């Protein structure tokens, strides 16, 4: 145990470990807050679809050799978020089928592009790290950390400020519209925030595992708590704890960051499920 603590203290002296912790916790916090709304609105598949779009966009950015990949990835993902939200509402087109189509297409195109215009000799290594995040969180630059911090603060402020509105349109969008809440505006805001979070989270967990970040904490919290406020708070807390524990464990054990955090989230879900089954909840 003591050896572990010493090892941890040693690692904490490296800025890249501290950066990873800061960014990891912030992303976990933001994605879990939004996750509650997404899961309840039956929108969790949009998160999944967007993460695949982000993968395709990243491939495009790599091929274009953009100096800052974010300048390509963020606008493309935002665009996809707005489009997906539209199809989700349109009852004529099957929303889930549209999402599935867009996500596999971006995945395939991304992989194609990365193979055709290989920028490094190790294509499969590149693809693997984009999909699963592997080590990129440990190579964050100071700029990227600041960027993540700023965006997270914006997301948190927006969520806090519009918390009651978000609750209203999540519980009953028709009623909210009828009494004059501009639901389309808030839906758009949610879509934009989700896109931003997914782009940020790509660094941490890679595009395949992002959905776990968004839905696991919310689902876990819903097993145990029965008010919207408690579910939101618990989801945020769980997510932060799992991210911290996961990142530290991965640093100590040398495992991939994203996969370790998601494994923690899954364990937390099982625990919450057991608690929810045994008692009547809180």
């Amino acid at each position, binding site marked *: 145990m003591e050896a572990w603590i010493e090892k941890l203290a040693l690692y904490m002296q490296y800025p890249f470990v501290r950066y990873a912790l800061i960014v990891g916790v912030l992303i976990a916090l933001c994605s879990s807050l939004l996750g509650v709304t997404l899961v*309840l*609105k*039956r929108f969790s598949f949009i998160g999944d679809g967007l993460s695949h779009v982000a993968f395709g966009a990243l491939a495009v950015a790599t091929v274009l050799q953009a100096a800052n990949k974010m300048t390509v990835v963020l606008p493309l993902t935002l665009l996809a978020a707005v489009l997906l939200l539209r199809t989700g509402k349109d009852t004529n087109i099957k929303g889930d089928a549209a999402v599935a189509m867009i996500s596999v297409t971006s995945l395939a195109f991304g992989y194609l592009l990365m193979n055709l215009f290989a920028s490094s000799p190790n294509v499969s290594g590149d693809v693997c790290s984009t999909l699963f995040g592997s080590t990129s969180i440990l190579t964050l630059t100071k700029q990227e950390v600041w960027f993540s911090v700023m965006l997270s603060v914006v997301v948190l402020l927006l969520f*806090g*400020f*519009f*918390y*009651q*509105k978000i*609750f*209203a349109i*999540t*519980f*009953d969008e*028709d*009623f*909210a*519209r*009828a*009494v*004059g*809440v501009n639901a389309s505006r808030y839906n758009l805001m949610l879509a934009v925030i989700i896109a931003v979070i997914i782009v940020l989270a790509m660094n941490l967990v890679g595009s395949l595992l992002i959905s776990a970040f968004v839905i696991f904490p919310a689902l876990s919290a*819903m097993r145990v*708590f*029965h*008010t*919207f*406020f*408690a*579910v939101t708070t618990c989801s945020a807390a769980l997510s932060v704890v799992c991210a911290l524990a996961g990142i530290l464990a991965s640093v100590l054990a040398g495992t991939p960051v994203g996969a370790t955090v998601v494994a923690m989230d899954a364990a937390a879900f099982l625990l919450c499920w057991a608690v929810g089954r045994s008692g009547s909840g809180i």
Partner: protein
Amino acid sequence: MPQIVCENLCLGYEGETIVKDLNFSVEAGMYLCIVGENGAGKSTLMKAILGLRPPLSGRVVFGDGLEKREIGYLSQQTDVQKDFPASVREIVLSGFQGRMGFRPFYKREEKERAAQNMERMGIAGLSDRCYRDLSGGQQQRVLLARALCATEKLLLLDEPVSGLDPVVTADMYRIIGELHRSGVTIVMITHDVAEALPCATHILHLGRRVFFGTRDEYLREMKDTPEKKEGASHGSMD
């Protein structure tokens, strides 16, 4: 000036008109029941009044001090709501959202009004309970309390008793009747004509024949043409 005037409303979906040239008005103090077969356009009419789905043509005008956003709405239960983790208080308070603008928190008097409305609906003791754990009748009372937070002037109720057992249904009609007597205009969609008729002051019948008028006129009309399906091709529309 009536609270709501519907002028030459045509309702329907792309290319398919369900309701044609509908004219009626809702005066303050009315208890209007909208009846008709399934697919006659009852819910579509309600959505047009609420501004959720624009009519194909015609218009809905608000007056008598009623603004569009001052309509309390009791919708049919959605799938999302059935297992929604929210306390009764959270839901009732959300009725105020429409008039909050960008204000992020509820004011003290709003919290008090919410408490009063829960008291009025007989659910004060449930305010910390989870919505999904309540019975169907209790859930409807919660949604009614929320609608009352949105307005005291006019309530639009879409099938408020569907899925409720007879005892709870009678209770629900009693509550709606009390609200009506306390001065709230009621517009209610129902397929349960027999249950709804005793309380209604006016009836709007949608379908192959369209009728709008007082309850007594409606009963007379029904008596004159007992063959409902073969009824007059035009109702007394005004």
